[in-house]
Structures are given as C-alpha cells and as structure tokens.
C-alpha cells in the first residue's frame, strides 16, 4: 500500500467538491459520485483497518476503532468550522444560501461529533479503564457538541426566519470562540496535575490507514452536507419565497 494513496484519494475528493461548486450542471448527480466513491473507499478502509494494519503495540486490536473515531472527530470539527464561517459571512452579508449551509453543517457536525465521542468512549473503556476522562480533546469536543446541540435547539425554537438566521449566527460565533479557551484551560490544568496526555505513537502503516479513513469520511461529509443543504433550501422556499406580486395574483384569481 503506497504511502501516497490517501493523497490520491484526497485529490479525488477535492476534485468532486470543486466540480460540484464550480459547475452547477453537475450538482444534481455529483453527490452520487461522491457517495459511490466513498463507499468504495469505506470498503477499502474496513480491509485496511481490520486486516492490513498491524495491531498497535499498546492497545492491540482495540486501537483499530481509532481509524474511524479520529476521522469522525475531524469531520465534526470541519463541519463546525464551516458553520462558523457561514455565521460570520451571514452577519456580513445576508444570504439564505449561507443560512442553509450553516444549518446543514451544524447538523452534520453534531452527527459526526456524537458518533466520534461515542466511539472514543468505547475505545477508552478497555484502554484507560474509564468511560470518561479529563482529556483536553475530549472535553473540548464535548463542549462544542453541547454548544451545537444548543444551537440546533435554538434554531428550532425561533420561528421568524430572518431572526433565526441572525441570532443563530451569533450563537454559533459565541460557541466556537470557546474552543481554544476550553482546550487551553484543560490542557493547562492537566499539566499542573502532572497528568500525562495519551500520545499515540503511530507507525507509518497505521498513519496511512488513519489518513485513508479521514479522506473516506470527507466523501460522506460532502454528501451529507449537500443533501441536508438541499433540504434546508427547499424548506426555505416553501416558507419564504412568496413575492408580493404572486400574492396579489392569487387574491385576484
């Protein structure tokens, strides 16, 4: 398995995403391409992760869950970063597309995040002996996840669409800003209490599989966000796109 294969896969993903964005006519089916490729990559990942990669020295076979857990967390963070980017963009220039993308990325992010934290917990039990720990990454991810669950709840409780878009952008920014602070404060607390952070030393084969897993999940992140974005857009049009002229015609008819 050549060391550059995850890079080749990454090139594929980027190609798909860029084509989708740059060439509007492909948007109807590009997600299917991505989904198909993703499935193939996933099958490969299952083989690579369960069979090809050597068992990790310290964690043995349990460590294999990391090949999915770590990519999930990466996708979660990427999705949330897209969300906060949309929040800032929306506050600078109002656009229903930006709001739809914000909604989609938040939901998909929570999905991946919840999965990631769950898997992390499953991994932690046999490894550390506990379901939970004071790890900065764990705490920071959980706080972010809670913030975004709050974000989604807030969106569902705010009825006026314009207000929902503006206010949830504010919630998103306030929540995201906490990430570096949480990370730093927990890490500092641990250093004071001489808690060793669990650094995994991965050999090159395992590293390849980790990267392959991350890129595989990128396909799925793309598909989920695209589809959820479409749902958000169609909900918007059914609630909003009624111009005054059409209303007049309806009344006259």
């Amino acid at each position: 398995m050549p060391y550059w294969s995850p890079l080749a896969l990454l090139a594929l993903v980027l190609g798909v995403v860029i084509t989708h964005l740059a060439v509007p006519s492909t948007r109807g089916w590009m997600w299917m391409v991505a989904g198909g490729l993703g499935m193939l990559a996933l099958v490969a990942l299952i083989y690579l992760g369960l069979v090809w990669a050597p068992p990790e020295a310290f964690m043995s076979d349990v460590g294999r869950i990391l090949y999915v857990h770590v990519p999930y967390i990466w996708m979660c963070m990427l999705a949330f970063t897209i969300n906060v980017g949309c929040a800032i963009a929306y506050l600078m220039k109002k656009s229903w597309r930006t709001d739809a993308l914000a909604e989609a990325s938040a939901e998909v992010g929570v999905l991946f995040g919840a999965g990631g934290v769950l898997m992390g917990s499953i991994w932690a039990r046999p490894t550390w002996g506990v379901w939970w720990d004071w790890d900065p990454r764990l705490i920071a991810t959980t706080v972010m996840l809670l913030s975004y669950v709050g974000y989604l709840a807030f969106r569902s409780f705010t009825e006026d669409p314009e207000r929902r878009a503006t206010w949830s952008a504010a919630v998103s920014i306030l929540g995201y800003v906490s990430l570096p602070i949480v990370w730093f404060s927990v890490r500092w607390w641990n250093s004071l209490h001489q808690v060793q952070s669990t650094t995994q030393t991965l050999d090159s084969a395992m590293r390849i599989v980790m990267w392959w897993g991350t890129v595989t999940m990128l396909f799925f992140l793309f598909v989920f966000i695209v589809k959820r974005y479409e749902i958000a857009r169609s909900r918007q049009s059914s609630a909003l796109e009624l111009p005054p002229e059409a209303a007049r015609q309806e009344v006259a008819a």
Partner: protein
Amino acid sequence: MPDTPALELRDISKRFGARWAISRLSYRLPPGRSLLLTGHNGSGKTTLLRMISTATFPTHGNIELFGRETRAHRAELRPQVALLSHANFLYEDLTASQNLALAARLMGLDGVGPRVKELLERVGLSARAHNPVRQFSAGMRKRVAIARLLLKAPKLALLDEPFGELDPAGIAQMEGLIRELQAQGATVVLATHLIDQGLSLTQERLHLEQGRQEVPK
C-alpha cells in the same frame, strides 16, 4: 434642501414569517405637509410606522427620511424622529419622573430636572410624578409617553392611534399638541380611526389595505 421630501417609501415590503405585512408600497410625502394614515386593524399601519421610526427595517426596498436612508443613517435619524405607539417604552417600576429623566439624559438634554417638571405639569401628571408607572391607568401612561415625545422635539413625529385611551378633554389636548408640533415645523404622520379629527389635522392621506395602498371608500 427645500425639495427633499420628509418621507419617501421606495417600493417597500415587510415580511413576518410567511406573511407580507407590507407589499410593494411606494409613497412620497412633500415637505411641510402632514400625513394621515388610515386602514383597518392589520392593514399594516403599525408596521409602517415602526419602519419609519427605524425600530425595524423593510425586507425589500428603502425608506428615506429627509433624503437619508433609514438603515444606513439610523444613528443620525433617530434623534430627529419620535414614535408614539401602543407600546409606551416605559419602565413599570420607575416613576413617571424617573422615566422622563432617563429619556432626557439619553437624549443629551440639559436642565433635566426643570424640563421634566414642566412637561409633567403640561400633561397634567405633576401630582403623580413620583409614583411608579405600574400604578398608572392606560390614559396616564399615554400622557407620560406624550411627555416623552415632547421632550424630544422631533422633526418627524409618528403617532399611532394617539387618541386611544383618552377622554374628550384628552383628545382636544392631543389635537392642540399636534398643531403645536406642526407650528414648530415638525412633520406629523398620524394613524387613527377618528377620520374627522385626522382629516382636520393633516393635508395628505395614505390608506392601507392588507399592506398595500388602496383608495379609501
């Protein structure tokens, strides 16, 4: 600029959820003229007045006051515009005097003490100046709101059903007040169901039905 209209609505629309409260409304109020705004409840009068006051902004289109667009110039325009509406902007647990003093200080006026006293006398509330607004009747609250408007001495006065909750003496006093504002050079936009009073106080009329301008029947 003598030709700049006091108020110009350029194809404005305002949406609440799925409903358009104002649809594609355009209107121009020449300088020096006062406007009567009529229409049933729910026709969009209050929404329109709120937009003109810069409390809110149109979903589409622009509103210009004295030649300046509301969204971009709200900081400049707000000192010159005053809104008297159903919501009286008062703090229930502060006294009438404290509410007015707060407003005066926020507006940057001097001689707050004497000014507030004089205005309370003017609206007939001197005796109750130091009672919390919570204890006031609807009519009394309205009078505090009127005093607040007078404090501001606005160039554009927006009055949403100012005669509501007033007795005949109060109505006469309100009419006098409106004429006084006009004498001071203010433009008045008056929304009311009392058509006769309204017509006698204004020179132009805008009638709304379901958020659109219609010819009154």
